[in-house]
């Protein structure tokens, strides 16, 4: 049986890069956006999200900086680097190809 959330989880890094390519953001905001886009059907566990942030930062795809909020705790914002954009573009192309291939493999009648 195919568990949709497991399939999506394999794309955590690409999903985060996709959100950051629209502009700088922080952990909770990214999760809120993901929830909104999927109509509340999917949300990343925070541990998964932060692990991905660390991984992407170590790979040089994103950079973090601290915001200066006047009230409450400081937020840690992330911004995408040129390298991150390149990785995202590549992932997007790969995904589109894979999507078509899987679609063909599952739907098309054999020759």
């Amino acid at each position, binding site marked *: 049986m195919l568990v949709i959330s497991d399939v999506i989880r394999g794309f955590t890094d690409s999903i985060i890069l996709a959100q950051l390519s629209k502009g700088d953001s922080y952990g*909770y905001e990214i999760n809120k956006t993901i929830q909104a886009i999927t109509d509340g059907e999917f949300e990343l566990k*925070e*541990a*998964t999200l932060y*692990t991905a942030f660390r991984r992407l930062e170590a790979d040089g795809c994103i950079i973090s900086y601290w915001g200066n909020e006047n009230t*409450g*705790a400081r937020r*840690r914002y992330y911004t995408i680097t040129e390298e991150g954009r390149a990785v995202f573009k590549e992932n997007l192309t790969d995904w589109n190809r894979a999507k078509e291939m899987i679609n063909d493999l599952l739907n098309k009648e054999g020759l």
Partner: protein
Amino acid sequence: MNSKIKNYVDVLFSDIPKGKKANELKEELLSNMSERYNDYIDEGKTENQAYSLVISNLGNVDELLADVIPDAEFKQEARFYRVRNARNTAISVAMYIIGTVFVIGLGGLSESFGGRDYSVLGVIILLIFVAIATGLLIYTNLSTPPEYKDYDEKKERECRLYTGKQGRVLKSLLSVYWTFITLVYLAVSFFTMQWHVTWMIWLLAVVFQGIIKTIYEMRHDDE
């Protein structure tokens, strides 16, 4: 900020040695969890509901926490910088003091030998020593990467050092040392009657105390 969430995060991090990475992760988790909590409250959930939803949304943090624990390599490098910095500081302080000894010593020499005035030479030597020592201190400070400065394993270790069995040994060692220095100071002073110079023994004693402590800490580092 909800104190229950803060407590929960504090407990999560209670076994993690404090370091820059750990502190940053803690602050990041706390600010995002608080915001989520506030949103749940705004949606009309009770405090308990909001709290349990926030905690369940966190997921498994083991991997995340393992990532911010200072690893063996980091600890070793931190130790290298600590020992190097302690050594360089001790050398610099010693040079400042030895430079001063030259000024006073050569000044005294001029008095006793009448003829030539060596005090200018003493000042020149002092200035050279000061320049080298200051340069060494600045270099030491600038060449230490900031993440090693923040890492406070030293604090943990010092606590152990001064409270455990080793701490008692060091304490008694130092009290014997200071009694000894006092005796030496009085003996040398009464013997030579050069009270205006012998006070330098105290400065030298402080430097030696630093060296003793450093050697002692280095020897007990691996235990």
